[in-house]
């Protein structure tokens, strides 16, 4: 087994995505970082992120559970403290494609959310809000721990085709067809309003990521992630591999990153000269910052091209 791994490693350059995936198979990424900076600092962004995900969920849940109505509704559309409407622009886009022009609240709510992600980073939604991220992160973690290898990963562009398909099918059927199966809204709605058989969809996503395609759902298929990736193309908040000269090629960042292909240009200077991760697919989860023992990464803005 180890002999096989080493021969494979020789053929596949370690700084490639596949190389990282293969190293992820054998490594517990982040060990070095824990030794260098302590457990807490090596999990800082992860903890903050979980806090954000669960906190947002809690805001939605204290209403139905305890009658404290901070937020009503769900991620598709909500009303905070009775005044602030928020609407998911992805659902709104489907609605417009289906040929329905909504009331002002929904448009305003969609505008607010859209502006937020346009400005700060589209896939912040994925890393900091989306409840499915908990599921796929768990699958990725278990996959590393169990040392599961291989699998059949669809091309990374599949999600953009799927996004197009979602909008086309909305237009053709004149309904929010994707929302019948969308795991993202289904999980969130399920947690707040009741699941029914939607557990099956959560289980399917988990098993798909665990057994068939590593990071398959969020990294390759989810049209909602693709949508937010697109609106985050020019967002301010970016991760920078500012201290990339200190990188010792441990590849831990590649192993934990849900979108490992975005790291290489910044870290290895492939096709760009600055250390910014500008790819819209980066979810700004900050996990690479956590697991790097050499403190290569930091969160910065897209204008900060400095290196240290």
């Amino acid at each position, binding site marked *: 087994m180890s002999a096989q791994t080493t021969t494979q490693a020789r053929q596949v350059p370690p700084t490639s995505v596949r190389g990282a995936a293969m190293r992820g198979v054998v490594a517990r990424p982040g060990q070095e970082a824990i030794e260098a900076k302590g457990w807490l600092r090596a999990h800082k962004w992860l903890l903050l992120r979980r806090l954000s995900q669960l906190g947002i969920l809690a805001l939605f849940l204290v209403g139905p559970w305890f009658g404290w*109505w901070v937020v009503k509704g769900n991620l*598709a*559309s909500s009303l905070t403290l009775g005044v602030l409407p928020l609407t998911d622009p992805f659902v709104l886009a489907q609605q417009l494609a289906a040929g329905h*022009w909504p*009331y002002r609240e929904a448009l305003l709510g969609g505008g607010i959310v859209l502006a937020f992600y346009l400005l700060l980073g589209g896939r912040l939604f994925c890393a900091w809000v989306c409840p499915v991220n908990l599921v796929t992160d768990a699958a990725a973690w278990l996959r590393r721990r169990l040392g599961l290898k291989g699998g059949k990963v669809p091309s990374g562009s599949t999600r953009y085709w799927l996004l197009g*398909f979602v909008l086309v099918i909305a237009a053709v059927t004149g309904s929010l*067809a994707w929302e019948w199966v969308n795991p993202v*809204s*289904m999980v969130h709605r399920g947690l707040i309003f009741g*699941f029914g058989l939607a557990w099956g969809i959560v289980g399917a996503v988990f098993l798909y990521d665990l057994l068939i395609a590593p990071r398959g759902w969020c990294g390759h298929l989810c049209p909602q992630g693709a949508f937010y990736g697109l609106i985050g193309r020019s967002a301010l908040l970016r991760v920078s591999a500012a201290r990339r000269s200190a990188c010792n090629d441990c590849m831990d960042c590649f192993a934990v990153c849900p979108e490992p292909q975005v790291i290489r240009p910044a870290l290895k200077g492939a096709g760009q000269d600055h250390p910014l991760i500008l790819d819209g697919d980066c979810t700004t989860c900050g996990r690479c910052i956590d697991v790097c023992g050499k403190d290569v990464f930091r969160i910065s803005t897209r204008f900060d091209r400095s290196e240290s």
Partner: protein
Amino acid sequence: MALAAGLYSKQASALPATALRPPGALAEGDFLAACVRCGLCVRDCPYDTLKLAELGDGVASGTPYFEARKIPCEMCEDIPCVVACPTGALDRALTDIGDARMGLAVLIDQENCLNFLGLRCDVCYRVCPVIDKAITLERIHNPRSDRHAMLLPTVHSDYCTGCGKCEKSCVLPGESAIKVLPIRLAQGSKAEHYRRGWEEKEAAGQSLIGDQVELPVRGLEDKAYGDTRVRPGEGPQPGDAVPARPAGSGLDSGWKP
């Protein structure tokens, strides 16, 4: 894949007959384009009438509906569910809850409805928020006892909002004898080719064929035309000799095999 999605959406857009949309809901096709499944209508319903469909409920998952036999709509005057909807899936043009058409009540089981059995239950009639308009008790002769009336609960589509209060309160232990159905199931189509004489007459202000000749009825000559009621003491009395009938006439021809 497109085909599968299309089939699925078609299948999913067929609402089960007991699932009713909230007041003001757009027609089902438009509703499925408009509703984002946020549940704000559900949250603002003070009676917990509405719920969001879960996968497996047979209603497009995440869309709001209610089942009248479980919790009916209380027809709130301020219609908070409609006010809460941010998308227009529930149409704010509905400002008078009396104009809501969530469905149409139908007295579907005439064999078990207590009023149809000749009893005075009347519960569905009494609870109706639009009593005496949406639902009335129509008095007809009870042919079984021959001396009582039956008061038949009768729904009128001009006024019934489909709130389901009647279905909820029907006293039968299991299924209700009166049910709110989607209007498309509850109503037959109009027989357009059939002219209703009385409506034509009203529209024209007079009978289209002129006054009818009033022929006298033998034995009722002293009564108003059309009045065929016979009071005690009138007509043949018990003990009166039965007029002899010429053999071979009438219904009983006397023929024997």
